């Protein structure tokens, strides 16, 4: 909802440019990572996922990169569109926590026309 997003880091990009949203995770035992998109007033929507045995995965206009050495995950959105404006969350699945998902606090993406 609208109240989610207060105090979130914000990335502002020009329409048509590429966007890169970053996420740091803390647990080296995490084996699976997901990116979700959340539009105002809606629930999180799956975008793309990646297993820990991969370092890159591509979807339609989106690419996820995983750097296990520094525990860093990024989401790249090509040719950003106004409809991409939303809050983006990364989530990690921790093998030492009954395989439950742990969500990051999110990044707000604003696309300037």
């Amino acid at each position, binding site marked *: *909802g609208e*109240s*989610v*997003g*207060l*105090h*979130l880091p914000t990335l502002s990009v020009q329409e048509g440019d590429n966007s890169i949203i970053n996420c740091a995770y803390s647990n080296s035992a995490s084996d*699976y990572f*997901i990116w*979700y998109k959340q539009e105002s*007033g*809606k*629930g*999180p*929507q*799956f975008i793309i*996922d990646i*297993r820990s045995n991969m370092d890159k995965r591509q979807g339609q206009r989106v690419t996820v990169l995983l750097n296990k050495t520094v525990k860093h995950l990024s989401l790249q959105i090509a040719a950003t569109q106004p409809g991409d404006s939303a809050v983006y*969350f990364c*989530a990690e*699945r921790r093998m030492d926590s*009954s*395989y*439950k*998902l742990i*969500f*990051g*606090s*999110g990044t707000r993406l604003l696309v300037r026309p």
Partner: protein
Amino acid sequence: NAGVTQTPKFRVLKTGQSMTLLCAQDMNHEYMYWYRQDPGMGLRLIHYSVGEGTTAKGEVPDGYNVSRLKKQNFLLGLESAAPSQTSVYFCASSLRTPRSTDTQYFGPGTRLTVL
């Protein structure tokens, strides 16, 4: 195929009142989850269920109870609401055990305000 639905969409309670949030999914998913989302804190798992008749505690279970009497429904109860439970509540479901890479699918959320 409606996916994951939640009722109600909005609710205002007074401190001490009780209520139940209903989650329903029509995807025949085994796992269901209840999360709360607060500003700047991401999603936190309240309770989850690995199948009909089973429930388990998540990260922030205190003050909530759940029931999974039918595979397609997962109920979240607040017995005595407190202002700290003001939040947006999301239900999610996934096909199989989290050991697989089945993603979680979320409902549209319930915005709860406790006065």
